[in-house]
């Protein structure tokens, strides 16, 4: 499963729904919590790279939004886990997320200017598509604890707004590139 997950994360835009569902099968609640938290942290790290590199105000604003919103979601997750008195469990999917992100961050670090902006925006769109599909189609239906399920459902509302926003950012940057 690890090999499948690694491949999945290194080519998120090419994922099929079936592939995501298969890769996510079998995670327990605490593993899902860990993977969700990890996914948030990764997007915050992408945003920090963007803030260090971009001069585009829209990209900057989006990156600031990602840091603000994903930090808030993870604060909520931490509070919920504390309330439930449980610890999230590291797992192969979380590790694959980190591995995939390491490669993507290296790729982004090598870019500058408009090329960076387009790559960051495209990755944000693909990443949110992947995570949202995973949360919506696999984690929420399978998670057992009702409070964790409710939390993921609420978090997904935020992530879908981000996906939509990222889509508009990609469109704006591609439009600018054609002009």
């Amino acid at each position, binding site marked *: 499963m690890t090999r499948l997950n690694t491949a999945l994360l290194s080519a998120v835009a090419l994922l099929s729904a079936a592939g995501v569902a298969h890769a996510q099968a079998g995670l327990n609640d605490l593993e899902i919590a860990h993977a969700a938290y990890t996914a948030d942290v990764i997007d915050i790290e992408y945003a920090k790279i963007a803030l260090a590199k971009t001069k585009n105000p829209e990209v900057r604003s989006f990156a600031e939004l990602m840091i603000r919103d994903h930090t*808030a979601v993870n604060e909520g997750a931490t509070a919920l886990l504390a309330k439930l008195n449980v610890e999230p469990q590291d797992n192969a999917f979380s590790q694959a997320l980190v591995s995939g992100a390491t490669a993507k961050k290296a790729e982004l670090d090598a870019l500058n200017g408009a090329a960076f902006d387009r790559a960051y925006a495209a990755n944000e769109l693909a990443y949110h598509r992947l995570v949202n599909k995973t949360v919506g189609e696999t984690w929420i239906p399978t998670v057992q604890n009702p409070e964790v399920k409710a939390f993921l459902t609420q978090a997904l*509302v*935020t992530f879908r707004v981000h996906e939509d926003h990222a889509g508009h950012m990609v469109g704006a940057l591609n439009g600018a590139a054609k002009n």
Partner: protein
Amino acid sequence: MLRRSLLALVVAAGPQAPPLRAEVPAPRTHRVEIQGFAFVPSRLEVRAGDVVEWTNRDLAPHTATDDDGTWGTKAVKHGASSRIVATAPGLVAYHCAFHPRMTGAIVVTP
């Protein structure tokens, strides 16, 4: 037509709100829930002197910010509230500064 300065931002959120204008009798507090990245209700009718209180039910922080930029709440975190006092008649359009597609309107009557 939108008018500026129709609402005065109350500096402190929640119960620390300062007294309302003395000439407005029996002001009411109108509550707006922020949930699912929307202001609910999205349109509110209040009288001058009334209080509008936003409570954020989303995980992400939000604001209520006048489209003209004349007033705005601070970031309202999950479960927190922030208030303004309506001070003059007119129509005020507002949005979330972090998520500008979230919009609302307040009609202030004398």
